[in-house]
């Protein structure tokens, strides 16, 4: 190449041809200049029609304040980047990513110069991935619950048999000559007590199957959360002759998404159940205590433990040692990401004699 490269390239042509939006905005948010690609994204006819137009008005209200602060920062000499959504002049919504820095105008005023790209496609893809991940987490949660459904059905069927049996007896008593009022009342009381058993199970099921989008971070008693999960697992554990020991410090409160933490616990109990079914001595221990500023919740079982070659893969998505159709292979990987989302950790404690998983969570003040 010979000579000055400005012989080959005109700066104005560069400005005209840049495939990104290139623009200059004043510290008050007025559009001072913009290249053709910028005009296309803004859906403006020409530069004259938008000269000194207020850029802030194009930014969606949710992002407007942040954009204004960004503009002020840039006009005071800083560089930075910002992702925001805008509504173009003809109504198209676009996600934009802007790289900006200060630019001193001929008047001496410092303005904002930026290259901005349309990243709508990328944002949409990310949203889809996130939605898919959530859908997967949902189905994994329901799959975990499914493991306990047999026990739950049994737990509901027995009280139903009691209610229908007692009512059948009462009907016959009404047809007989003598009615022992006290015995009659006692039977009614027992029926009511038995319906309470069913409604408690339904209540706990509802918590667990609740739409996770409405599962806000709230303060809960750790002992209460564990008690509700155990009531759903209890029947399966009893029928499988698994002893459960649960000791949770009743003083501990955690700020968490309850459904999510319940999902983690149900996964761990479910795994523990499967592990101890292969042993003669069957127990699961759940311990919850406070260690410094953390809550440590451990689930141990009497199973044979986890082989070393398996151990390194247990947190991988879709990894399972269970037979086909039994495990999704998502339990531990989803549990682990739930804990990260709670600023906590899920670890497998290798130095424990028995299989032990530990949840570490920040304690609420």
């Amino acid at each position, binding site marked *: 190449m010979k000579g000055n490269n400005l012989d080959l390239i005109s700066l104005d042509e560069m400005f005209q041809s840049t495939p990104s939006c290139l623009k200059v905005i004043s510290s008050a948010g007025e559009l001072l200049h913009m290249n053709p690609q910028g005009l296309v994204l803004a859906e403006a006819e020409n530069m004259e029609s938008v000269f000194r137009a207020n850029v802030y008005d194009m930014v969606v209200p949710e992002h407007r304040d942040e954009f204004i602060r960004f503009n002020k920062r840039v006009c005071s000499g800083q560089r930075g980047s910002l992702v925001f959504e805008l509504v173009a002049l003809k109504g198209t919504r676009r996600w934009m990513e802007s790289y900006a820095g200060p630019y001193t105008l001929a008047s001496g005023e410092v303005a904002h110069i930026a290259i901005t790209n349309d990243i709508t496609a990328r944002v949409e893809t990310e949203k889809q991935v996130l939605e898919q991940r959530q859908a997967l987490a949902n189905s994994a949660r329901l799959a975990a619950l499914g493991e306990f459904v*047999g026990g739950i*059905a*049994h737990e509901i*069927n*027995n009280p*139903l*048999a*009691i*209610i*229908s*049996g*007692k009512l*059948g*007896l009462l*009907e*016959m008593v009404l047809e007989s000559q003598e009615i022992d009022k006290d015995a009659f009342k006692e039977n009614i009381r*027992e029926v009511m007590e*038995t319906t309470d058993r069913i409604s408690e199970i339904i209540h706990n099921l509802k918590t667990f199957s609740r739409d996770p989008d409405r599962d806000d971070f709230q303060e809960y008693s750790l002992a209460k959360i564990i008690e509700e999960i155990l009531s759903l697992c209890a029947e399966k554990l*009893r*029928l499988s*002759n698994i002893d459960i020991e649960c000791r949770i410090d009743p003083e501990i409160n955690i700020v968490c998404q309850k459904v999510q933490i319940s999902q983690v616990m149900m996964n761990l109990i479910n795994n523990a159940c499967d592990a101890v079914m292969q042993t003669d001595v069957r127990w699961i221990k759940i311990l919850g205590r406070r260690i410094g500023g953390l809550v440590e919740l451990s689930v141990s079982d009497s199973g044979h433990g986890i082989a070393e070659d398996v151990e390194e893969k247990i947190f991988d998505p879709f990894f399972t040692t269970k037979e086909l159709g039994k495990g999704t292979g998502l339990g531990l990987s989803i549990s682990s990401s739930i804990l990260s989302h709670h600023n906590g950790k899920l670890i497998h404690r290798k130095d424990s004699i028995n299989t032990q998983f530990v949840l570490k969570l920040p304690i609420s003040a």
Partner: protein
Amino acid sequence: MNNPNRKTVLVVDDEKYLTGIWQEILKMIDTDCVMADSGESAIAVLKDREVDLIITDLRMRGSDGFVLLRYLKNEAPTKIPAAVCSGFYNESSEELMSHDVVRVISKPFDVREELDFLKAFLYG
């Protein structure tokens, strides 16, 4: 009333209100009721006294109904008829078929129907 033909039924269930219901039904037909809350405890009762019929749940805490059914099939000195009362008949039907049960009662059950069955089976 001292009925020389009075029969005895062993009811095995770990739900005390359910055994209570069977007790009431049996009382209506002047029949003695003995109760147990697991397969093992039912076997202990059988070693102690004679019964004319057993009504047993299948899934119970501790030892389940199959422990009792296997005892009846393989070890019991005399053949005692057994009826099964369970919410999970289908789930275990294959294993159940290998045992000689006189009736399968699925929970929840109709008290009147069972009263008729017991009357016919024990005294019919």
